[in-house]
């Protein structure tokens, strides 16, 4: 009896200590970043292009590049991911082949992103001749986050209570009515949460973009999906790898911008989970 109590307390302390350590580490990192990046972080930082002089360096090209990438990637990944998830959950015969497919998709979510970069280079840049454009970048990112979106959308679809489907079928509904008008809306909050979290992974990706040819130094805003592009993490990497200390501070400012976008994304996801996810179980 007493021994068990002992273990319980010990375990609690270990868990507590570990989580404290993790949080502290994060805090230290944030404080350090803020102190470094504060100096260059003003409104002109968002409206100016990269420059040879740290005081005039801005992140406009990277910011717009990232926004473009996000918009294009979301537009492609959302329908593809949701349709695949709906197919797997509602239409695919429950056989060994489907299981195999599902296991493979889950595994794809764990493939290193650089592999997707190579795939994108081979298919989009070379084979489809899209060159180093936003198309190539966003299609590569789409491939990268599709598995995550599919798996999370499957979970959301699966958690729509059976009773809702039965209610609709009992009214003479056909499968497509049920899937499109009942299951999809009920699963939407869960699906959106997954999409947003997947997109926030895409925001931070650097390696695959480098491989498909995003540039580090750019002084214009892309105006169409076939333009050259850069993205926040690449811009940050470009600054961080320069010898001047001032540019390291500029990089920190860039990281703060990136982090704020990520934070906004995650808050949106939390908000969606809390406000919209209400259906009877």
């Amino acid at each position, binding site marked *: 009896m007493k021994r068990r109590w002992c273990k319980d307390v010990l375990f609690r302390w270990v868990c507590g200590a570990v989580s404290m350590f993790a949080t502290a580490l994060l805090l230290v990192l944030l404080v350090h970043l803020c102190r470094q990046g504060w100096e260059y972080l003003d409104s002109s930082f968002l409206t100016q292009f990269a420059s040879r002089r740290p005081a005039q360096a801005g992140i406009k090209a990277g910011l717009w590049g990232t926004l473009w990438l996000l918009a294009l990637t979301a537009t492609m990944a959302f329908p593809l991911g949701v349709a695949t998830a709906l197919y797997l959950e509602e239409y695919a015969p429950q056989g060994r082949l489907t299981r195999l497919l599902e296991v493979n998709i889950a595994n794809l979510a764990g493939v290193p992103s650089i592999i997707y970069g190579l795939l994108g280079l081979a298919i989009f840049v070379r084979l489809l001749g899209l060159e180093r454009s936003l198309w190539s970048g966003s299609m590569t990112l789409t491939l990268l986050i599709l598995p995550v979106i599919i798996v999370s959308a499957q979970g959301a679809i699966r958690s729509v209570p059976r*009773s809702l489907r039965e209610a609709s*079928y009992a*009214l003479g509904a056909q499968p497509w009515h049920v899937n499109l008008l009942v299951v999809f809306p009920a699963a939407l909050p869960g699906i959106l949460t997954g999409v947003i979290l997947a997109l926030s992974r895409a925001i931070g990706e650097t390696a695959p973009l480098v491989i498909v040819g995003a540039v580090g130094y750019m002084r214009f805003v892309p105006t169409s999906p076939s333009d050259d592009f850069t993205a926040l993490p690449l811009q940050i990497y470009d600054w961080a790898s320069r010898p001047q200390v001032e540019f390291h501070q500029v990089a920190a400012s860039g990281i703060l911008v990136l982090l704020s976008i990520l934070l906004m994304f995650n808050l949106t996801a939390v908000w969606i989970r809390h406000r919209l996810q209400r259906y009877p179980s």
Partner: protein
Amino acid sequence: MNVTPSCALEVKGLSVSYASHRAVEEVSVCFRRHRVAAIIGPSGCGKSTLLRSLNRMHDFDPTVKVSGQVVFENQDLYGREIHPPTVRKRIGMVFQKPNPFPKSIYKNISWGPWINHMRGDMDQRVESCLRKAALWDEVKHRLHQSALSLSGGQQQRLCIARALAMNPDVILMDEPCSALDPRSTACIEDLIADLREKYTILVVTHNMQQAKRISDDVLFMYEGRLVEFGPTTQIFSQPRVAQTQAYIQGKFG
């Protein structure tokens, strides 16, 4: 069973099996038009399984095998030319747990007619269904609020109203009151008595008193078989089979 033309739904030699075992065996019965039939029997005897086979709700589970006939308007519902959604339009269902859509009260009612392109004034249809389900006065001021804000009893009446909106001929109810308090139960029992004029109703229930109060006929099942079917008064006063009597008196089940 003697077959009369007034059968709304005639079941002939119906068997239903799940992957592992048979849940309903060789049931034959005639449910009379515009009557309330109660289906009783101990838990697991196949009441829900029987009920769900009457509007083809087993179709979604490929492991379920149904054999035999269910005759509705001179057609076998399991015949080859039958379109299951059409069957379900004519034979509605109310489930054990209230399952409104996470939409507004109004849309819960209008959804079925809407997807089926039914003609007529929707506002009017919604109002008349809610009136028939004795819910109108409680919700008329908040038709566009979420149906999930209703109480359990109100939700169940909403589900009945939703089934009525399809203007079915038969309504199947699987223990519609089991999740409800006595007042809501009484409300739904009254409702069933009213609906009887226009619809044929089949109710699964565990409550003997309820079966006695609301039904015209009683079907007693045991281990997947039909043990006895007859008018409620006869079943409760002089059942032909000893097993029925024992069950009604609460000796098992």
